[in-house]
């Protein structure tokens, strides 16, 4: 199990040391340095804030010994120069390193079995390389946020952390979707690269094909779209400059009339489609107006006689209108447009037939076609391009859907566990006993709003409410942190969060009696999960072993000038 074994303050060759057990109890009255100790721990663990806290003055540097079951790490930070140092054994010299390497070294000692996959996915999702400091909101329950269930994680009170923490909660509770998004995005990247390679060739192919079709039309040559056939047609023309006349086409006048008539039909269908749409919205408007009038009459029945004429007229007007909404106008319009397009194509061909083609123009077009046939001869795998495009579109759609969806199961399980952790211990504490008796009582932590509320039954319904009493709120708050660690241990084994919980003055809202009962339960749970705890308290309670007890009644920092 990871733990902070010792912290040392250095000043002018003198030192002051504090040794920490797995579950420390730090006792001291007001202004003795409990909060200062929290800040000192955060500082030695790599906080980017400067050490300006009043109670930590005159400290030149701080050291810490970090241990896990297999190894240990000495770390040191100087205060004024802001230097970072580490060494592997007590006897060796400190080596100066960058702050990133400092944090990386600490990360390496946090867990025996490191899972890099979580880090890779985190990196991809947040576009940043995480360290344990990204999750340090899990490590501190600060005095100023004690019992505040509207923002359970006290560090989330600062706006700069709030949004980041919500995103991290999404990562923790929606990881399966995020993992899928990650994998699909990797696949999308690779498909896009493949598509880019094919793309320029494909686009030139398409352009050339369209140009070829146009020139064939201008030369009144039969266009089939098949390379071999079209090339033969072109070669025959190039050799003889003879164009075949089309004998079986209808005359131009007939085709123009037919096309015009279809255009008129399209206009009519569009008009009827619009009328149909208007009918639908008109019905909604009528409904709205009737609803307003009925509302007034319901409030004041004596006005009914004034509104009868209006209501009767509206109903009459509604019935008189023809129902136009049944036909599929879109399909009819599409079919007619398709037919018209065919006619228009024939008209174009006939028009081209009637035009004279000069020798120079013909030569130019032949020259162009020769070039186009060379381009078209290069094989472009249209099928592959089309398949790839479809795959890319499908992947984009899937990624979008995954981003929008969310799996509630994990949160539900978490909340069930939290409620179990809270009610499971049969402690003789008033607020707990009251809640255990509540019908349908449960706790619900919302990881996206970072707030917690309770639920209970009122009549037939389950109703949310904010639980009262600071003692209850603080108790629940501590359990949220620990249940969060429990969740991470089960679902994110090997991830780089620090298994440490520092709680500042949690005893205060509870009263000594309650705190004495709650404390051992909290410690048991932390021990079971493998979390080191450091409790700061103004009250001494019984049952604390000497090895776990740190007394700072004389003041935390002996170099402090009061």
């Amino acid at each position: 199990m990871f733990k902070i074994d010792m912290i040392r303050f250095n000043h002018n060759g003198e030192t002051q040391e504090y040794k920490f057990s797995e579950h420390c109890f730090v006792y001291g009255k007001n202004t003795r340095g409990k909060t200062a100790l929290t800040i000192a721990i955060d500082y030695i663990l790599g906080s980017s804030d400067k050490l300006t806290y009043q109670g930590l003055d005159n400290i030149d540097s701080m050291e810490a010994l970090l241990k896990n079951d297999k190894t240990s790490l000495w770390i040191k930070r100087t205060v004024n120069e802001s230097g970072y140092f580490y060494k592997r054994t007590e006897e060796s010299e400190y080596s100066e390193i960058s702050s990133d390497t400092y944090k990386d070294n600490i990360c390496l000692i946090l867990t025996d079995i490191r899972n890099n996959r979580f880090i890779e996915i985190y990196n991809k999702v947040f576009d940043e390389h995480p360290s344990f400091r990204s999750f340090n909101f899990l490590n501190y329950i600060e005095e100023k946020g004690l019992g505040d269930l509207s923002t359970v994680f006290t560090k989330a009170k600062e706006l700069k952390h709030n949004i980041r923490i919500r995103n991290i909660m999404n990562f923790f509770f929606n990881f399966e979707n995020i993992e899928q998004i990650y994998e699909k995005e990797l696949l999308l990247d690779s498909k896009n690269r493949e598509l880019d390679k094919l793309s320029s060739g494909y686009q030139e192919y398409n352009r050339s094909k369209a140009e070829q079709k146009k020139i064939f039309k201008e030369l009144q040559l039969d266009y089939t779209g098949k390379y071999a056939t079209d090339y033969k047609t072109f070669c025959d023309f190039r050799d003889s400059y003879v164009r075949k006349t089309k004998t079986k086409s209808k005359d131009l006048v007939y085709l123009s009339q037919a096309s015009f008539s279809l255009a008129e039909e399209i206009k009519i269908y569009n008009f009827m489609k619009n009328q149909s749409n208007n009918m639908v919205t008109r019905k909604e408007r009528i409904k709205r107006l009737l609803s307003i009038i009925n509302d007034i009459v319901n409030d004041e029945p004596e006005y009914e006689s004034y509104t009868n004429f209006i209501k009767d007229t509206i109903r009459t007007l509604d019935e008189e209108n023809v129902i136009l909404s049944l036909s599929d106008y879109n399909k009819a319009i599409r079919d007619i447009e398709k037919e018209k397009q065919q006619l228009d194509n024939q008209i174009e061909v006939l028009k081209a037939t009637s035009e004279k083609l000069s020798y120079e123009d013909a030569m130019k077009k032949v020259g162009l076609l020769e070039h186009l046939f060379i381009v078209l001869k290069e094989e472009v795998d249209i099928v592959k391009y089309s398949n790839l495009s479809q795959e890319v579109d499908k992947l984009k759609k899937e990624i979008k859907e995954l981003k929008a969806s969310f799996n509630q199961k994990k949160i539900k399980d978490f909340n069930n566990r939290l409620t179990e952790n809270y009610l499971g211990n049969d402690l003789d504490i008033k607020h707990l006993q009251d809640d255990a008796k509540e019908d349908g009582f449960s706790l619900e932590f919302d990881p996206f709003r970072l707030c917690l509320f309770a639920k209970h039954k009122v009549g037939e319904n389950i109703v949310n409410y904010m639980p009262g009493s600071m003692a209850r709120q603080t108790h629940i708050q501590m359990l949220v942190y620990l249940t969060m660690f429990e969740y991470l241990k089960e679902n994110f084994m090997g991830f780089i969060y620090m298994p440490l919980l520092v709680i500042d003055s949690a005893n205060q809202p509870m009263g000594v009696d309650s705190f004495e009962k709650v404390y051992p339960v909290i410690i048991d749970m932390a021990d079971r999960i493998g979390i080191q705890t450091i409790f700061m308290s103004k009250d001494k309670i019984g049952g604390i072993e000497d090895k776990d007890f740190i007394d700072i009644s004389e003041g935390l920092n002996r170099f402090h000038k009061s």
Partner: protein
Amino acid sequence: MNLNDLIKEAEYADIILSLLSEPYEINSVTKMIFFSFCIRYEENFASYRKRSRDFVDVFFENISLKLDVNYKDLERIMSVLRMLEKTRKIAINKDSIQILEEFSYNTENEFIKMCNGKTPNPILEINKLDATAVIEEVIRYV
């Protein structure tokens, strides 16, 4: 009834009496209700001066928004009509209003004052619609 409601009712009373008097002499309950409502909330006087759009379109175009917020005003209008009916100033039979007691009235309403001084008079032009046509226009814009 609170003070705001009372003031509103007084404003509608002003409008209704003006519409009952010359030159408007509106004799349809339907027209009275919708005209009074639209006149009370009419602020866009400039459009009536420009004449680029039909008076009817300008008059009814925002009725949807106005009804959204103030539909309860229709009750105030009907309350005024009820008072006039009970005090035997008018008689109402189905949609028809008959004036029982002649009265002349000078309006305080700014829109009606503006219309009184205009030729053509927008309210008189809109009054050419019958009750059914007015309902059609209201449906179109609501």
